[in-house]
């Protein structure tokens, strides 16, 4: 893990800490935390091909229900969770974890070491997982210095009770809801609409302050802001324009580090964009600064690279300025060019606005773009019938190597295993961007509106919420 990355994390967490400082009074128990999100969740399985917002929402929800062996503090340092201590050999290849005793499932059953092995087995790369007495041993087969970060952030490495015949954390055939060892237990699940979680009284890290968390799904950013203003919601996801407005009105806004990449992605087999000059002309015509300033309301950063500066430290090496003259020259060389079809996720407002703006910019270069939403479930479709997409990709790390794996999965960044040095990531990224398969536009942070009742808001800079630490003003101490 690169040291400079954590320096950035520390700095970007200042706002978070300031919020926490404002809530220095003693936390109070009770009450229902009302959360509104834009995604409509129909599944909890992160392996499903979900939209970025949906995947992030699934991750956040699972973090409330499940546990990991370790977890990261806001500085990115591993802290004990289901494992109370750990040690490894000199090559960091063999790891030995001492499991926390007395942990119970949310239905009261004790968590056994065998269940932990069962939950992790097969998910830790090519490593073997086994019990050695009361301890858990993981043999990575080679040096794995980032294993703790992986165990802390990889959703597939959460410890959960395996469901038989049904996807994890979905209602099984008997109507039962998933059970974990996390701070909250899912008690109500209305797919796409609403979820209610109850505080886990037997949580090993102490009972959460709020009694319940009520999650409303599929709320538009504008409606979320309105609910926040009317006191109908305590925590809301906001788009940049609403976040800016809320900020101007004095609302509390939490901003993560840039954790998403908004980019253009060319269809790999689309004849209309096979000519490199078309891609170059299009990339050169985009006014990233206007998008960053207006559509993202100055919250994000213009991006010429996949990984944001706080993660890689080298993002400034990639150019971000537009070159309309060059774009027009390339367009002139192409001759007759067809109208390109630009797609975006149907529920992604920022992607739509960005696609429309890209179309306006491309028009200046003499390229005609036809903007249209992609069909629902577009991630599962083999042919999207779009020449290029305006797409978001989650690049939140919290380490560069972890972010590289995410980019490999979401954008097709070619990697030879998990890179352990920034130079490797840079080389791969440079080579990948030279193919013009992806044109980075903006690095976007996560924006959360926080209501006045919320005390002790806690979240990591890379966007992980710790709702178990949140309390509500006015509840019993």
């Amino acid at each position: 893990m690169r040291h400079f990355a954590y320096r950035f994390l520390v700095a970007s967490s200042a706002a978070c800490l300031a919020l926490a400082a404002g809530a220095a009074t003693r936390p109070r128990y009770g009450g229902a935390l009302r959360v509104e999100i834009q995604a409509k969740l129909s599944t909890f399985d992160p392996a499903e091909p979900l939209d970025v917002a949906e995947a992030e929402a699934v991750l956040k929800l699972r973090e409330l229900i499940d546990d990991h062996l370790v977890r990261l503090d806001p500085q990115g340092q591993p802290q004990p969770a289901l494992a109370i201590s750990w040690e490894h050999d000199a090559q960091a290849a063999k790891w030995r974890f001492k499991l926390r005793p007395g942990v119970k499932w949310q239905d009261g059953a004790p968590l056994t070491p065998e269940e932990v092995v069962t939950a992790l087995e097969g998910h830790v790369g090519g490593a073997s997982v086994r019990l050695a007495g009361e301890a858990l041993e993981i043999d990575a087969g080679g040096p794995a210095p980032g294993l703790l970060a992986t165990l802390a952030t990889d959703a597939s490495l959460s410890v959960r009770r395996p469901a038989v015949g049904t996807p994890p954390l979905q209602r099984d055939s008997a109507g039962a809801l998933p059970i974990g060892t996390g701070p909250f237990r899912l008690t109500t699940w209305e797919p796409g609409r609403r979820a209610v979680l109850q505080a886990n009284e037997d949580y090993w890290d102490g009972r959460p302050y709020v009694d319940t968390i009520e999650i409303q799904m599929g709320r538009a950013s504008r409606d979320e802001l309105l609910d926040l203003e009317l006191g109908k919601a305590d925590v809301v996801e906001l788009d940049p324009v609403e976040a800016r407005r809320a900020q101007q009105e004095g609302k509390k806004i939490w901003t993560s580090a840039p954790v998403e990449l908004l980019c253009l992605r060319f269809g790999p087999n689309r004849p209309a964009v096979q000519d490199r000059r078309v891609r170059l002309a299009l990339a050169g015509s985009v006014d990233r600064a206007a998008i960053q300033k207006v559509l993202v309301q100055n919250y994000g950063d213009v991006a010429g690279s996949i990984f944001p500066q706080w993660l890689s430290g080298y993002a400034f090496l990639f150019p971000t300025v537009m070159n309309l003259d060059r774009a027009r020259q390339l367009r002139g060389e192409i001759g007759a060019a067809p109208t390109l079809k630009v797609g975006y996720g149907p529920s992604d407002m920022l992607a739509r606005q960005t696609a429309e703006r890209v179309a306006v910019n491309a028009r200046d270069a003499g390229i005609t773009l036809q903007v249209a939403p992609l069909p629902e479930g577009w991630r599962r479709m083999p042919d999207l019938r779009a020449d290029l997409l305006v797409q978001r990709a989650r690049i939140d790390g919290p380490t560069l190597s972890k972010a590289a794996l995410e980019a490999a999965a979401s954008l097709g960044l070619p990697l030879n295993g998990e890179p352990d040095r920034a130079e490797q990531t840079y080389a791969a990224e440079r080579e990948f961007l030279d193919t013009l398969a992806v044109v980075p536009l903006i690095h976007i942070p996560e924006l959360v509106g926080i209501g006045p009742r919320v005390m002790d808001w806690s979240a990591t800079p890379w966007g992980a919420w710790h709702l178990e630490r949140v309390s509500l003003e006015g509840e019993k101490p």
Partner: protein
Amino acid sequence: MSFRAKLLAVFTLTVVLSVGLVAWAVSFLMRDAFERLNSERTAALVAQFQREFARRAEEVTRRVEGIAKADETLHMAVSLSGTAPDYSSHVDDAAGLAAAHQLDFLELISGDGTIISSAQWPARFGYKQEWVTAPAAPTDWVAQGAFLKREDLADGEALALMAVRVVRAGDTRLYIVGGRRLDREFLASLVLPTEMRALLYQEAGQEGGESSGGPPSAGLPNVKGVADSRLVDATGPFPWSDKLMPLITRVEREPAESSAQITWTADPASAEIFHVIPLTGLNKEVLGMFLVGSSIRELVELEKHIRVVAIVVAGGGILLGVALSGWTAARVTKPVEQLAAASRQVAAGNWNVRVETRSKDELGELARAFNQMTQQLVEQRDRLVQTERVAAWRELARRLAHELKNPLFPLQITVENLLRAREVDPGEFDEVFRESSRTLLAELANMKTIIGRFSDFAKMPAPQLQTVNVNEVVRGALKIFAAQLNVPVNVPGKPPITTQINLDETLGAIQADPDLLHRAVQNLILNALDAMPAGGTLTLRTQAATSGVRLEVSDTGKGLTKEECERLFTPYYTTKLHGTGLGLAIVQSVVSDHGGKISVESEPERGTTFTIELGIKN
């Protein structure tokens, strides 16, 4: 053409012309009235369009004015009046304001023309709208009022009715540019009379596309046309745009109101008269057109109805004409036909025919004149016959006298010589008596011959028909004249006659009396020889005729005059010094008795040709 046909033609022509003239006059007046009505309806629709246009213009102006006067707009202007104004926080403002004030288009534009926020094209923030701040732009937007503008959109262009207001915050100006779309919904607000349609055409700027197909609009034939998204009616793109493009192009070239008749299909009833009004923008440039179409279906159907009625009336008139002409003809032409039939009988020799008449009109007068004429003809014929008989008798007497006078004179001289010889020289009386007796006998024989000829002519026998070869008859006749025809040259008193015999040996036999035919040919040859006292060429020719045989006998004599030719076959008429005038009369009699024809052709000094035509079956 018969009188009856002429009468029918006149009747028919009169009826058709009359009906046609009336139908044309009615159609002309009706078309004139229809065009006047159509003009009035078009003018009414155009006036309605202008009223609706003005109403919407006022509405747009009022709404833009409302936005400009709103407190939040003023606050916005104030917030943008700093040295480094942040436009980004207002990027969504136009959409909200446009929705609140029911405007299709709204843009908030800074004093330098930069788009701060656009409701119709949100992604266009930061671009310039230079027309607002251009030197040529109106200085007083309030006085300018609403105007037509072509509005760029992400997916093309739209025709818009726009208004501009300026909000001032110190030196900062904020332009409020709002408007409403002028499209098919606008057309839908117009109340269209039946058989009329209103279309809106938007001039293409940078873009503008075509699409084909689409369901046909109401009133249009169900045939696939070519739609152009720039031309719409109240239901959507007009599917027959291609038909209207020539008219639209004409108005584009010369921006003035224009009209034309558009025919959609081969059916003339589908045609419409389109009136085009150019719609201009701030700089008087043509941005669109308002088209009013008025169907001529009613006119065409009315004209068709009139045409059908005219045809029926004309047909009835023709039938009536036929009946009338028949009746009239029966009244008028029957006496004429009777006269014609009587005339034909008269021509055929029946001069005793009479035409019955009861009428006292011109035709009755004509019939009576005809009857009088035939009566006079009969009387004249009788008189002529009587005259001819007298003449014939006189001619016969003259001939007899002439013929008999010649031998009588020698008889008288001889008898006087006998008497004188008895008185003067009785001794030589016997010698004189013998000599005189021979002379008397010779002259008596001569007289007997003459009388015999007359007798023969008087008792020409009826032909006894049998199969006869004409060539054989000709050869037989020639044998009789062999001595005369084979005279050597330079024999004194014997003219040299050359004979040319051209007989068609393929000639078939005919039914004829060989003796009579032989006699006729003999007479013709004799006649020809008499015509050539100084010699010449006798030509005999036989050949097949249409229904029999033709025999020609030609000489190269001095020929005959026309008068001689006409009288040649008259009995006892002769041009010869010692002829009886019976030879050719006998020939004509023989030919006539055989049912044939004889004709003569002659030219003076060129000779004469007699032609006999005889039928195979006589």
